[in-house]
């Protein structure tokens, strides 16, 4: 099958590659780029394990072709840590609040929560629950995930206030 040339930015790095037009973004990232943080849980865009942040939106990379991401700016869990190497408030919050067990949903969950907090820096519990409803977790029962997102929101907001 003829391959298409694509370029994109992934976690701040420019990537150039040849892909079959039918290659899904998640397979491109995982199999060709060794970015294995985003996972495959359903391949039908229901579970959210494959969530990446693409041009400022949460995207389920199992239902998007890699060629559709040509020119895009993508961030995955691997690019979530702060520039100085410390972990992002969400990564800290999930560990602090026991917001994960098997860890399989976690990369997608954190990536989704990251965009949620960009859009709504002080979400209510109901807004957090609604905001992560496209991401399934089979282990935690969500309560600790909600707490983790809230803790991160508070931490980020006090960091912002301190900076102002």
């Amino acid at each position, binding site marked *: 099958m003829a391959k298409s040339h694509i370029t994109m930015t992934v976690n701040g790095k420019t990537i150039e590659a040849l892909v*079959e037009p*039918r*290659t899904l973004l998640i*397979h491109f990232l*995982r*199999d060709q780029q*060794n*970015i*294995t*943080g*985003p*996972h*495959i*849980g*359903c*391949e*039908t865009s*229901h*579970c959210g*394990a494959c969530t990446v942040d693409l041009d400022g939106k949460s995207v389920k990379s199992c239902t998007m072709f890699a060629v559709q991401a040509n020119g895009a700016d993508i961030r*995955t*869990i*691997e690019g*979530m*840590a702060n520039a100085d190497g410390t*972990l992002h408030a969400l*990564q*800290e919050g*999930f*560990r*602090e609040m*026991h917001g*994960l*067990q*098997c*860890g*399989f*949903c*976690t*990369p997608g969950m*954190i990536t989704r929560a990251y965009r949620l907090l960009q859009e709504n820096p002080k979400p209510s*519990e109901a807004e*957090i*629950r*609604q905001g*992560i*409803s*496209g*991401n*399934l*977790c*089979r*282990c*935690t*029962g*969500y*309560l*600790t*995930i*909600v707490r983790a997102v809230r803790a991160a929101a508070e931490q980020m907001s006090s960091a912002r206030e301190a900076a102002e």
Partner: protein
Amino acid sequence: MTTETQSAQERTQKLEGLGTRRKRVEDVRFTQGKGNYVDDFKLPGMLFGDFVRSPYGHARITSINKAAALALPGVKAVLTAEDLKPLKLHWMPTLAGDVQAVLADEKVLFQGQEVAFVVAEDRYVAADAVDLIEVEFEDLPALVDPSQSMAAAAPVLRDDLQGKTSGAHGPRKHHNHIFTWEVGDAEGTARAISGAQVVATEHIVYQRVHPCPLETCGCVASMDKVNGHLTMWGTFQAPHAVRTVASLISGIPEHKIRIVSPDIGGGFGNKVGVYPGYICSIVASIVLGVPVKWVEDRMENLQATAFARDYHMSGEIAATQEGRITALRCHVLADHGAFDACADPTKYPAGFFSICTGSYDIPVAHVTVEGVYTNKAPGGVAYRCSFRVTEASYFIERMIDVLARKLGMDPAEIRRRNLIRKEQFPYQSALGWEYDSGDYLAALDKALNTVGYAALRDEQRRSREAFARGETRKLMGIGVSFFTEIVGAGPIKNCDILGLGMFDSCEIRVHPTGSVIARLGTISQGQGHATTFAQILASELGIPAEKITVEEGDTDTAPYGLGTYGSRSTPVAGAATAMAGRKIRAKAQMIAAHLLEVHDDDLEWDIDRFRVKGVPELSKTMAELAFAAYNNVPPGMEPGLEAVSYYDPPNMTYPFGAYVCVVDVDVDSGVTEIRRFYALDDCGTRINPMIIEGQVHGGLTEALAIAMGQEMAYDEAGNLTNASLLDFFLPTAVETPSWEIAGRASSAQSCSPVQLAMETAMRLQPGASTRSRL
């Protein structure tokens, strides 16, 4: 020494031992996307396997044409039963003593059954090849309803068992009969029921559901043809058992097989069994000489790898007019699907279903379980509970509610009257179990008081009156349930799988600098063993948990163990860990006596060191003793500080709990709100309360799914009509309530009380039903 100046409390805190809400060591990698799950593996030359599966529930295969697939560039092999036959690998043993087709042998028996295995350069080419394989089927009548399995005219499902009048669990009385398992006093129970003042009966269907971990099942098999070693990474909840089974099936000697369970994305019972994908990957790797990866997709996971429940239970419960239970009888029709691949201890084909007298003092009981074949996927695993315990727990609690309604008694009051009293422990149940300990009444009362039960019942009465007057369209339900689980399988005297005793193990090495590696035969799938087992050792050894690495899941390094499922790892492997730790400490004590020039009886243990009794300033810390173990041990003692322990538990263990659920239902829209859910669990010693709470939250959420309609829905032709996450219900954060939990929670949980509490809460027309279906 600076440590001498630290208080006992400071030294204890530094250990992060038992009872500490220690943050999980696993999370450092998981929160950065650095977990290592099976689909993350990429080996040089690795190929991908994919299955052609049956679209039919029951059909004869008339031909398979693989020419077009083999002609496709990038396709390396296509395997069918014909190819496996010369190797005698077209069938494999199951954990339940039956056999299962690796690739369909002339017939398919359930939708999604493996028919051919394609191996190709990448997953896309493999999928293309699957589409190019032409299989012709001749449709046969599908048997979907287990109540019709043993009808005289029922179709023969298992041609391979024709004429076999006995199976792994005794005589077979019909071509679709697997076993009949019976326990208890049939005559005494019949007598008590026929002479009873009150008898309540109920037919209860516990529907087929699926554990559906977020990561599906998969493996990478790699045969090194030079040295004859097979290495396999995969989603295995029981890696050593997989090694033994792989050796028995393949003929490769067990010492040349290495099974590794890397990070596992949830199991819940789904990853206990040995699946055709594993066998086909091994064969393909042997044939082609390169690593072969197979990872199922979600539809395959739901269609073909292990389900749970599917118990059809008929119960009779007898009592006095005052509500004192006098007898219990249960008949179960168990739908095991097309092959009996239940993952139960071998002597227990219905698991520990005989825990079904629950938490109540019932003088006599009798249970029969009949396993039958249908045209559905094999399985029957312990999904978020011990073996068939959720089924048992749901059964008894439902029966108690039915009895309460018949007697016009409050469901909490009837439970209170029948709960086993704390002075009755150790308690011998009518069906043969010895319950170790408990204070059930205190637990029930605490739960009822916490939620304000009496006030809730008042509110419910007023709300029903208002409803009757037409003032509201909302009704309020209250569910109360109590459970006793039976976990920690188990004592070798009665628990084995295929002859392998269900002990577990731990091997510890203390390094000269006082850090430790502990290896276990279990494997975490999210339970956080690397965190909690280190805490056990921290308390046993007086070495901080942060200096203890816990390694599991590699059969080349870990001592033999039976794996993680059925709520067994902490009671069995956790105990093995403590026992091995005590061996280390005993040796350290002798070294300390040698160094301090005293008799070892003159020493006492103090958090992280041995002290000379009466001379507290004379002491040796474990860190000092670790180093001494490598250079200055007593004469005649071997150097080093290592121990291994294989723990065969003397009994099962019996955690319990009381749950209360309050729901509001809009009778017109059906919208149901869970106003409150309170769960009280008692598991004994808590190792890490944070992790325990997380485990309980998760169990409750899966129970919510089942109570709210999760079901594998088969149509009459044997099609699984909801084999995707679009149709198969998994709760999101929106449907899931905020759980309130309390008490000494357990890592073992039974999800049935949740369903029961919800279901009874929502059952709003008293006396309306003699048939329960979630």
